């Protein structure tokens, strides 16, 4: 198997172009940093776009308090290393009401701890543009997403009201009450992201690499036991298996895959040969038909 890589420079240039267009046109941008591989590539490209200056915007992390511990360690180290501004926002109201991924359906939990939290954080910061790492290859409703995705007041995404984008001209003139999500990785695939990480030697969260980790099997999915908050079913006992993650989110909602890919070359090879699409490991997307489209309409990413 061979893997084309000569298109990565083209994708990189396109993403840098998008970052610069947004920074030039919007008053107060922010980068939605979710610590995963896409955010990591996004941040790397942002640093390239404005180098030698720092990216002219802060990072925003929506912390549900259920992220893998390794993710938080990685986040804090990254911010320190590159001297970036980080805003961490948690929906404390949801937290005090005891909203959690074990006792509430994924759709309820995600809406309160992620979507509502994100809206509140964007409003509180007065941000008119938010960079996100979404890719069009992730899911069907994202396949039609724009690079500048306009949101009406209340962060609502209305598919029929999106602006046409012609050539490389990105029109960032906002209407009344509008904000925008900017997706510099629109044309990247999961395979591109990993090949780029390898090519550019970018550091990522270690959970992407296979290692023996404690897991339980639920509904055929491998769930890693990241801390003591897990509620074990009667007879359920964590066992050590060699696993890694294709995507990272809240640990109770993110399934692992068994893998021997313990370093970057092996991960690249595994991803390019993958038989299952990436979001198959995300439990929140399987809740109902058109789940992602519904979440987007409500302002999720």
């Amino acid at each position, binding site marked *: 198997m*061979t893997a084309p890589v000569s298109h990565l420079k083209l994708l990189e240039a396109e993403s840098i172009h998008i970052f*610069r267009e947004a920074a030039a046109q919007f008053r107060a941008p922010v980068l939605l940093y979710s610590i995963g591989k896409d955010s990591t590539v996004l941040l790397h490209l942002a640093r390239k776009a404005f180098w030698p200056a720092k990216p002219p915007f802060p990072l925003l992390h929506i912390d549900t308090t259920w992220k893998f511990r390794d993710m938080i360690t990685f986040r804090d180290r990254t911010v320190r290393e590159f001297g970036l501004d980080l805003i961490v926002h948690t929906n404390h109201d949801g937290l005090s009401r005891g909203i959690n991924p074990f006792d509430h359906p994924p759709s309820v939990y995600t809406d309160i701890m992620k979507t509502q939290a994100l809206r509140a954080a964007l409003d509180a910061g007065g941000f008119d543009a938010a960079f996100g790492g979404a890719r069009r290859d992730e899911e069907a409703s994202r*396949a039609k997403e724009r690079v500048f995705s306009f949101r009406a007041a209340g962060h609502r995404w209305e598919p029929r009201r999106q602006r046409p984008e012609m*050539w490389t*001209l990105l029109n960032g003139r906002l*209407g009344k009450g509008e904000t925008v999500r900017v997706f510099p990785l629109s044309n990247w695939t999961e395979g591109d992201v990993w090949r780029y990480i390898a090519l550019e030697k970018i550091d990522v969260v270690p959970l992407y690499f296979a290692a023996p980790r404690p897991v339980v099997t639920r509904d055929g999915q491998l769930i890693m036991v990241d801390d003591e908050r897990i509620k074990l079913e009667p007879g359920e006992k964590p066992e050590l298996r060699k696993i890694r993650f294709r995507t990272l989110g809240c640990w109770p909602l993110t399934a692992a895959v068994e893998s021997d890919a313990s370093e970057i070359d092996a991960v690249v*090879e595994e991803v390019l040969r993958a038989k299952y699409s990436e979001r198959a490991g995300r439990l929140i997307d399987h809740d109902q038909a058109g789940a992602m489209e519904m979440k987007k309409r409500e302002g999720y990413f």
Partner: protein
Amino acid sequence: MHVAALREEVAVAPAPEASGMARLLTCGSVDDGKSTLIGRLLWDSAAVAEDQRAAVMHASQNRLLNGEKVDFSLLLDGLQAEREQGITIDIAWRYFETPRRRFVIIDAPGHEQYTRNMATGASHADVAILLVDARHGVKRQTRRHAAICDLVGIKRVVLAVNKMDLIDWSEATFRAIEAEFRALAQSFGFIEIVAIPVAALPGDNVVRRSAAMPWYGGPTLLDHLEALDVSTERRDAPFRMPVQLVLRHGDFRGYAGTVASGCIRPGDRLVDARSGLGASVRRITAMDGNLAVAAKGDAVAIELDTDLDISRGAVLSEVQRRPINADVLEARLVWLAETPFDPEAGYLLRTATDLTPVTSMSISALIDFETLASAPAHACAANDIADCRVLLGRPTSLDLFSHLPATGCFVLVSAVDGTTVAGGVITWAQAGASAVGDNVFVLDRELLARGLCSDLGDSPADLAEFHRRAQEAAILLRSVGIPVLIEI
């Protein structure tokens, strides 16, 4: 394959150009079997993951199909509303790769009421796959699709003659369709047309070579797409880099942008066509280190030996062949907005990185893209293709689209709500023809702040209201025939 080997591949690649990726536009209507063709391409080139395959197989069983086992179109229809209506109304982007090349499929709707979507999708494509039904041959719609591709600058076309299985794999019919298309395509600027007989449903000549058409010796669709040369730039294209923003860091001052055409090296002379100021390139910088050359498509920052005091909107160019510093232009555009063109509304011209106020604009003709005839007109609405004339409030650097596409295209922006109302290509432009003079009324900040907007402060809400009133005042003045320039 190991990453070490991947890196080697990069190192020996001749140039960091677009050769590694091809962007395909697929045009044709639902009836021509477009979704089936794309689905077949993805399915047979192993670009569909197992869970997606299973989902499609499962969903296929829930639909009434004419004896078909797999509904490939299920791989493509994205939004819920569209799934319910069973049509494709927006542009969908798909990605797949083979060992030889990375592909982007831009799937745009074919119906006439979606001309704007097709034009939008086509503007991103390197090559168009024009699909025709072998039973019906070249239709008015085929001509319209070809014309839209030509309008937005596509230079390479694949004519996929589909459903060959339904005409008994007839070579004569295929050749006749090919000849008819080649004849009509002479009105356009395509540099390459390749016709391929296919049957998307059974998969003949899509990825797998057909055994049913031994008379066809050409490549399969995938073979052709893998080998396609997607570069369109002339070897000696003049240098252009529209400035996106100025990067400052300590003593560093770099003009950041993406090279739109040509190339540049340290020591080369550059000029800003708008101010006429020139300087030499000191360094071409990137996070990975300084570059010896920056070519079309590269996103770089250029440090100059003298400070030109220019900002976003300027186009850095070579000294000899400069862009036109134009304030009047003619263009062919596709109207994108639901709201029709209104000569009294305020518009802004968005070129590569500049946003220029339009003082007046008029439509001169509407083009019937199925007959290619033009008729004098003064109005245009959604999905119309029109010729227009635009007067700008100040000059901006631009090129003719036929000469340099990246600096010769634009979108028209509503000054009131910011929406993109049209996209166009510049066919003629001139400097100094309409310079702001006695006949243009300038609504400036001071004038407005003194009276109409005297109650407004500096808050974002007040500033938005300031702009709104300025636009409304301009609309009233234009409605009584006064050209207006807003300068706030």
